[in-house]
């Protein structure tokens, strides 16, 4: 039985390793041939003319993600604090699973709402075409809320009761305890949740395709349409050949590396907490 399980584990893990090797093998040669600096920092994306600069997409991805974090992180952490410390446990027991349920809504649905409701709102009240950086950030921000809330709640709940009780016994209010004792103790878990959410935001494809307008240029304002790295791959993969296709794989490699770094940071942050205990 042990041998059978070893075989199972081995095949599962090698399948996963295969993906990593694969993407890298398809994209890395291109990066070396074309030049990493050119690839990353040139603003000319014209596949027909053999120009593959992804800088506008990199910038757009960064801005959309930043916007999403600005919206999602404070709301998410605030929600988590409220639900654990200021709401009766049974209520939280219902709301948390409900929020986790909402995390299961497919991203295309979020994107659709973005197109039908949010974009017109932006267009009518703020200007621009509606399909924009702002729309992308808002939709992504909402999408990452369940992740941040759920993991932050778990982190806050993991803070030992003794810490809270010690503070309250000294005459502190619940809010003071939260601010000075509970939150610092839950800090690493909350940080990890934010980092993970960032990874999700960066990797999101369908929703951003639908609401960001997909034009390849460096945005001058939040109301302008942008194209993210993921959208670029998804939109052009269908008909790309040769160098073009390899450039898209290379984009995949860039995304892969960024997300690996984020995941590594998240687990490093989590390990810090365990080490401190």
């Amino acid at each position, binding site marked *: 039985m*042990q041998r059978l399980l070893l075989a199972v584990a081995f095949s599962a893990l090698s399948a996963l390793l295969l*993906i990593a090797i694969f993407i890298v093998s398809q994209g890395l040669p291109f990066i070396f041939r074309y030049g990493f600096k050119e690839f990353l920092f040139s603003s000319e994306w014209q596949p027909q003319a053999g120009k593959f600069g992804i800088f506008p997409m990199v910038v757009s991805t960064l801005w959309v993600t930043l916007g999403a974090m600005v919206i999602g992180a404070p709301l998410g952490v605030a929600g988590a604090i409220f639900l654990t410390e200021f709401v009766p446990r049974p209520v939280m027991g219902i709301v948390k699973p409900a*929020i986790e349920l909402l995390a299961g809504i497919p991203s295309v649905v979020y994107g659709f709402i973005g197109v039908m409701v949010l974009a017109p709102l932006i267009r009518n009240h703020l200007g621009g075409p509606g399909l924009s950086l702002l729309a992308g950030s808002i939709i992504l921000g909402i999408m990452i809320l369940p992740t941040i809330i759920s993991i932050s709640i778990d982190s806050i709940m993991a803070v030992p009761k003794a810490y809270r009780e010690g503070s309250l016994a000294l005459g502190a209010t619940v809010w003071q305890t939260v*601010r000075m004792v509970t939150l610092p103790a839950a800090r690493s878990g909350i940080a990890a949740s934010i980092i993970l959410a960032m990874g*999700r935001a960066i990797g999101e494809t369908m929703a951003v395709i639908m609401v960001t307008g997909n034009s390849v240029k460096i945005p001058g304002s939040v109301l302008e349409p942008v194209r993210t790295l*993921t959208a670029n791959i998804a939109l052009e993969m269908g008909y790309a050949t040769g160098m073009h296709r390899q450039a898209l794989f290379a984009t995949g490699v860039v995304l892969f590396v960024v997300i690996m770094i984020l995941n590594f940071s998240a687990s490093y942050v989590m390990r810090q907490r365990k080490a401190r205990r």
Partner: protein
Amino acid sequence: MKLDPKHTQKAAVAVLGSATLLTLTALVFIIGFVLQKGLPVLSWAFLTGSPQDMGRAGGIFPAIAGSAALTVLAVLLAAPLGVGTAVYLTEYTRESRMTAIIRFGADCLAGIPSIIFGLFGFILFVTILKMGWSLLAGGLTLSLMILPTIIRTTEEAIKAVPVSYREVSYSLGATRWQTVYKVILPNALPGILTGVMLGVGRSLGETAAVIFTAGSSLRMPASVFDSVRTMAVHFYLLAREGISAENAYGTAAALIIAVLSVNLLAYWMMNRMIAKRT
């Protein structure tokens, strides 16, 4: 100390409460909006009929069948592989740098964007292995996507089983495998189920990876080598190509209901399992 802590607290609660309310409103609004526009479209004919005129009219049955088939295939492949791997890592090996690395690897892969899985599936399964756009290519790709999640949640679930249960089992003369499948796995089942359900939810909602591997044929699949369309893909195409907003809402409603039902079913099953034991 100018500000009375009690007042500060009141202010803080107000701010936090509004933030929470805003969050919940946004999330509920999205579901509510889709359901409000989509539920009227859901009729028996819609759910069981075939699409006509590229989806402008008719029903979405092939898409429902496609979603079901693809999800079932993905879970059938990923669950045994994932649970087996997790069991091996927790019960048959010592904690070491090796297991830490493997765990980290699985975590990383869990975070890889679906578009990259789509690329991978497209090149390996569809092109190199000549499966074409097919149920099989899609199922294999999806199973790889949900594999890391199942490994992780199963691992957590197994680790949560108290050490004392294992000790008791061994002291009664059980082998390692007997302990695993008679005591540990049944106990870890609720957690394992969570991982599988997460995988099901992900499979149902996946679009990018599915389009590139399973294609988007509107016909009912007759074999695993046929291309299929899932509800998510159908919804996306209807919405993006502007074919029919009405049917798009209907498909979205059906999709949301499917995802929510799967999750609720999972919660219910888990609660029953835990209640039976305590």
